[in-house]
C-alpha cells in the first residue's frame, strides 16, 4: 500500500513540475509578441505618453521575470488577471465597481462549466458505446460486422471534426429538424433543454472519440486471446462472450482505462473546433475568439487550463493503469 502511495506521489510531483515548466513555456511564448498591447489598443492615436500610461497600468513596464512571478502567483490563487478586451479604465485604476466582467476568471468560469458539461455528456455516450462495440468486434472478429465497424471507425477517426459536425447538422438539424443546430446556452436554463441543445455537439465528439476507444478495446482484448489461459478456458467449453467478459476483460482493463483517459484528454482539444461550429459558449470558443483579437491574459489562461486538464487526465491514466495492473505496482 505504501509503495502505491509513493508511486502516486511521485507522479503527482512530476505532474506539478510539468505544469510549472508548461506555464513558463506559455508565458515566454506570449511575451515573444512584437510591440505590446498598449500600442495595439491605441492604434494610430498612440502618443508616447498614452502608451507609457497604459503600460504602467497593465504592468507591462516591469521585468518579464517579475511579471511571470506575479502572474503565476495570481493564477495559483485563482486570479488570472484582467482581460484586455473587456478592460475598462476603472478596472485598472482600481475603482472598479465590482461588476467583475473584466476579470479573466469571471469570464472563464461559466464557460468552463459549459465545456465540462459538454465533455461529460460526450463521455456518457462514448464510453459505454465504445466498450460494447469493442467487445462485440473482438467477439465476432474478422466477421462482416467487424470489417464494417473497422471501416466506419477508421473513416470517422480520419475525418476532420467540422466535416462530421456539418454532416450531423445537415441530417439532424436541417433536413430533418430534430435537434437545434445552434447551442445557445444561457444561465438558468432547464436541464432538459440544455441537454437537447448540447446533444448535437456531444454526438459529433462522440463519433470522433468512440472510434478510437473502440479500436483500442478490440486490440487490447484480441491481444490477450492468444494467451494460454484463454485457450484453457476455451477448452473447458466456456461460451465466447463469457471468456471475453470474465477472463480477458479484467486483464485488458489497464490499456482500456488508459485509452479512455487519453481520449477524454483529446476531448479537451477537440472541443475547440466543435464549439466554434455549433457556437457553443464554452472555453474553446472563448480561446479562439481571444486568439483572433490577441487578448493575451485570456489566451494565457485558456492555454494554462487546457494544458492543466491534459496533464491531469494523462496523470489519472497513469495512476489508474498502475492501480489496475499489479505488475506495474512493483517496478524492478
Amino acid at each position, binding site marked *: 500500500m505504501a509503495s502505491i502511495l509513493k508511486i502516486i506521489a511521485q507522479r503527482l510531483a512530476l505532474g506539478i513540475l510539468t505544469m510549472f515548466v508548461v506555464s513558463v*513555456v506559455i508565458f515566454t511564448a506570449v511575451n515573444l509578441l512584437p510591440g505590446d498591447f498598449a500600442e495595439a489598443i491605441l492604434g494610430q492615436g498612440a502618443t508616447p505618453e498614452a502608451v507609457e500610461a497604459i503600460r504602467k497600468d497593465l504592468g507591462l513596464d516591469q521585468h518579464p521575470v517579475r511579471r511571470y512571478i506575479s502572474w503565476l502567483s495570481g493564477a495559483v490563487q485563482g486570479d488570472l488577471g484582467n482581460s484586455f478586451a473587456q478592460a475598462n479604465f476603472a478596472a485598472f485604476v482600481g475603482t472598479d465597481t465590482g461588476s467583475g466582467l473584466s476579470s479573466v476568471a469571471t469570464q472563464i468560469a461559466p464557460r468552463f462549466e459549459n465545456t465540462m458539461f459538454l465533455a461529460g455528456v460526450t463521455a456518457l455516450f462514448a464510453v459505454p458505446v465504445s466498450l460494447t462495440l469493442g467487445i462485440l468486434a473482438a467477439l465476432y472478429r474478422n466477421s462482416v460486422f467487424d470489417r464494417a465497424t473497422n471501416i466506419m471507425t477508421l473513416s470517422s477517426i480520419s475525418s476532420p471534426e467540422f466535416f462530421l459536425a456539418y454532416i450531423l447538422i445537415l441530417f439532424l438539424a436541417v*433536413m430533418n429538424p430534430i435537434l437545434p443546430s445552434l447551442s445557445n446556452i444561457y444561465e438558468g436554463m432547464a436541464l432538459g433543454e440544455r441537454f437537447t441543445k448540447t446533444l448535437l455537439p456531444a454526438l459529433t465528439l462522440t463519433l470522433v472519440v468512440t472510434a478510437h476507444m473502440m479500436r483500442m478495446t478490440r486490440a487490447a482484448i484480441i491481444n490477450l486471446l492468444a494467451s494460454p489461459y484463454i485457450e484453457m478456458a476455451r477448452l473447458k467449453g466456456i461460451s465466447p462472450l463469457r471468456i471475453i467478459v470474465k477472463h480477458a476483460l479484467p486483464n485488458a482493463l489497464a490499456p482500456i482505462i488508459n485509452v479512455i483517459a487519453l481520449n477524454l484528454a483529446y476531448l479537451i482539444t477537440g472541443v475547440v*473546433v466543435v464549439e466554434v461550429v455549433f457556437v457553443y459558449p464554452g472555453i474553446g470558443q472563448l480561446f479562439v475568439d481571444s486568439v483572433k483579437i490577441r487578448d493575451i491574459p485570456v*489566451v494565457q489562461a485558456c492555454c494554462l487550463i487546457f494544458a492543466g486538464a491534459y496533464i491531469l487526465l494523462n496523470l489519472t491514466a497513469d495512476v489508474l493503469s498502475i492501480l489496475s495492473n499489479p505488475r506495474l505496482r512493483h517496478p524492478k
Partner: protein
Amino acid sequence: MSTLMSIALILIGLLGAGWLLRFVGQRLTGNKPFFRDMALGVAFGYVFGALVLVWLVWAYIQSHSADATTANNFFFLGKAVEGFAIFAVAAFIFRLLGRHIGPDASRKIFRSMPLTASFGVLVILIYAFVAIFAAWLAPYGQEEVLSSANIVPGGNPAIGGNPDFPLGTDQIGRDIMSRLIFGAQNTVGIAFATTCLAFFIGGTLGFLAATLQGWLDQLLSRGVDVLMAIPSLIFALLLMTIASAWAGSEKGLLTYYMILIIAVIDSTRVFRLARAVGLNIVVMDYIEAAKLRGEGLGYLIFREILPNAYAPLLAEFGLRFCFVFLTIASLSFLGVGIQPPTADWGTMVRDLAQFINFAGFAPQVASAPLLAAGAIALLTVAVNFVVDWMLHKSSGLKE
C-alpha cells in the same frame, strides 16, 4: 418519448425476427451447424443488417423519383450511396489491373491487398495527379473573380445553376471547382511539405539522441516531454497568434510561419518514435562494427540506422501526414491557417458553411461546403486505410 418507444419496439421486433430466422433456418436445413450454433445476437445482427440494406435501397430510389427543383430529403444519401458504389467499383478494377499489369513486384503487392487499401492507393494517386496538374485541370484561376456570384452547384439552370460552373461559384463569384482543384495543390502540398520538415527535424534529432545518448538525449527528451504536455492544437493556435503579430500585414509570410510551427510541434512525436527505433538498432552488432571501423556520425545515421528504421518510419509518415493535414485544415477553418485569397479547403468550408442551412429548400446549395470538407476527409481516410494495411502486414497480426 414516443420516438424512444418506437425505437425500442423496432428493436424488439427485430429480435423476434432474428429468432424466427434462426428457427426457420434450423427447420429448413435440417439443423445445419450454421443455424444450430447461431446465437440470438448474431441472428439479430443479420436481420438488422438486412433491414439497413433494404432501407438504403429504398432511400436511394426515393432520392431519384422526385423533381430536382424541389427539396428532397434523400438527395445527399443518394449521392453518398453513388459515391460509395463508384469508389468501390473503381478500387476493385484498380486492384484487378494492378494484379495483371506491371512488373512482378507490384503485381505481388496487389495480390495481397484488401479492397480498402487499393481504394486508398487509388485515391492518393488521384489527389497527387490533381495537385501536380492543378494549373492545367482547373477551368479558371483560383483568385479569379467572375461576373456572377452565388451560382448553385449542379449546373441546372432551373434552380439557378450554370453549366459553365458545374459546382457553382461562391459569394464573391469565384469558381468553386477551380478552387477545389487548386486547394488540392495548396492544402495537400503544404501539409506534405510540413510533414517532410517535421520528419527531417524529428528524425535527425531522434537518431542523434539514440546514437550519442548522454546529456544530449536527456536534454532533447525532456524538452519534447514538455512540448508534448501541451495539447497540439492549442499550442499551434497560441503560436499562430504570435506569428500573426510578427507577420503583420504580410499574409503570405504567415503560411511559412504555420509550416514551421506545425512542423516543430509534430516533430516531437517523430522524435519519440525515431529515438525508440534508433535505440533498438544502436545496440546491434553491425553498429558496433561500423563504430570500430571508425565511421563518422553521418555515416552511422544515414547508412546504418536509417535503412533499418524505414518500415516503422514510413507508416508513421502516413499517420503524421493525416494529423498535420487535419491540423492545418482545422487552423484554416478557425481562420488562422492558410490565408485567403489562396484557395484552401479548410477556409472554403468556413466561408461556405452557412449554405448548409438552405439544404431544406434546395439540397444542391449545401453541397459546396460539404465537397470541400469531404475532400479533406476522403484523403485522410485513404491514407489511413493504406497505413492500416501496412501496419497489419508488418505486424503479422493474424487473429
